[in-house]
């Protein structure tokens, strides 16, 4: 059983950067185009993210993530192109439908920004093992119990979904109808999910006990088995990112 993660193990410069620095980078890269919503700015940030993804040798893995939002971006162009409030200048006309420059530009702005968000997060997710990411936050003051929750989610989701498919097969073998009319399929939902949910909720009781007797609620400051590896120069890099964010803010306020 795997832990839920999109992490791709590679030997790259990006992979060597510690999780916390990457988290700061993602934060800055994601938030900036919302502060300064110009098309050129978000496009440049998007290109930078693309470059880093190339450096991290994970560009191919981004495609499925991007294709996920492709349809919605397409419809944004169609709907905004036709119906955006400020639409004035006609760009072209297709089967009697008029598309306008303002709407298309607006669609471009939100689409590029959305893609930028996706790429920035992908960069973090594809090049950082989730457990290291969580631990790095716990070391910096995130409550250890919050860390526990996140670690646990990453394990529980693959486990429950594999149990789900076992249940699905078992119920089908017993003759439960999972195909057919909508009503038939709706009726199948509770018997499928019920037992799985019940048992996992009942198990919370014993799991809590097990954690308690291993000092989960101890008042002592928690320690870590694994040491954190932070390459040199990361502090400066983090400061640089934050300064960049400050500059963006300042620019926005001055404009």
């Amino acid at each position: 059983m795997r832990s839920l993660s999109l992490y791709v193990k590679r030997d790259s410069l990006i992979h060597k950067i510690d999780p916390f620095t990457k988290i700061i980078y993602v934060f800055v890269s994601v938030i900036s185009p919302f502060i300064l919503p110009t098309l050129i700015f978000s496009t440049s940030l998007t290109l930078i993210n693309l470059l880093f993804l190339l450096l991290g040798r994970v560009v191919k893995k981004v495609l499925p993530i991007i294709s996920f939002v492709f349809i919605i971006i397409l419809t944004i162009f169609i709907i905004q192109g036709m119906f955006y409030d400020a639409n004035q200048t006609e760009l072209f006309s297709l089967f009697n439908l008029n598309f306008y420059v303002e709407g298309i530009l607006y669609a471009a702005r939100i689409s590029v920004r959305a893609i930028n968000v996706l790429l920035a997060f992908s960069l973090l997710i594809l090049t950082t093992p989730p457990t290291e990411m969580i631990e790095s936050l716990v070391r910096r003051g995130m409550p250890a119990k919050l860390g526990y929750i996140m670690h646990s989610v990453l394990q529980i989701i693959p486990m429950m979904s594999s149990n789900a498919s076992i249940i699905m097969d078992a119920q089908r073998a017993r003759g439960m109808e999972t195909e057919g009319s909508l009503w038939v399929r709706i009726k199948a939902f509770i018997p499928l999910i019920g037992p799985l949910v019940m048992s996992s909720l009942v198990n919370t009781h014993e799991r809590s006990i097990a954690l308690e007797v291993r000092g989960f609620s101890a008042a002592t400051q928690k320690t870590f088995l694994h040491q954190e590896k932070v390459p040199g120069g990361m502090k400066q890099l983090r400061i640089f990112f934050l300064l960049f964010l400050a500059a963006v803010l300042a620019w926005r306020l001055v404009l």
Partner: protein
Amino acid sequence: MQNNQKKNLWSFNFSTMALVLIPVSIGINYVGKLFAQTLRLPLWLDSIGTILAGILAGPWVGAISGGINNAIYGLTISPVSFAYGITSIAIGITAGVMARMGFVKSMKRAVIMGLVIAGISTVVSTPINIIFWGGQTGNIWGDALFGILRSANWPVWLASGLDELAVDLPDKIATTIIAFIIYQGLPKRITVLFEES
């Protein structure tokens, strides 16, 4: 480099039962969505766990379940769901508050709770839809409605709100009913452990 002297930025005092419930509730959200997809139901059914967390352990635990649910989705499946974390948080809080007000005592009340959750979810999601997608939801039927309303010159917020509501109303009512049925089926000696803490 060991950084173990730092104090927690904010206190995080929940009972262990509640903490263990949170990942489980997120797992439940996930399998709900999974089964809904496999059965090709026209609903998401992806917040059963968050609503259960609210019912069982109160609004704050519901909120955390919702927030972390979307954070984890965002980090592992689709970054977009980060933005909708606020919606999930609102759903968890609403479920928790309404459960404490006695809305999980009967099926009738649970349906009302579902209605309220759908309303709140719509109100919270619409601004996000507008900021992020110019008002769309990504659901074909809802977006078709959005397109029609926009072509008839309805304001964005109203068209977008109705787009979202068209998706949320059936989904959140069904989700709440399912959560209610499961809650009713749980042994009392387990639920009391959540309440005591």
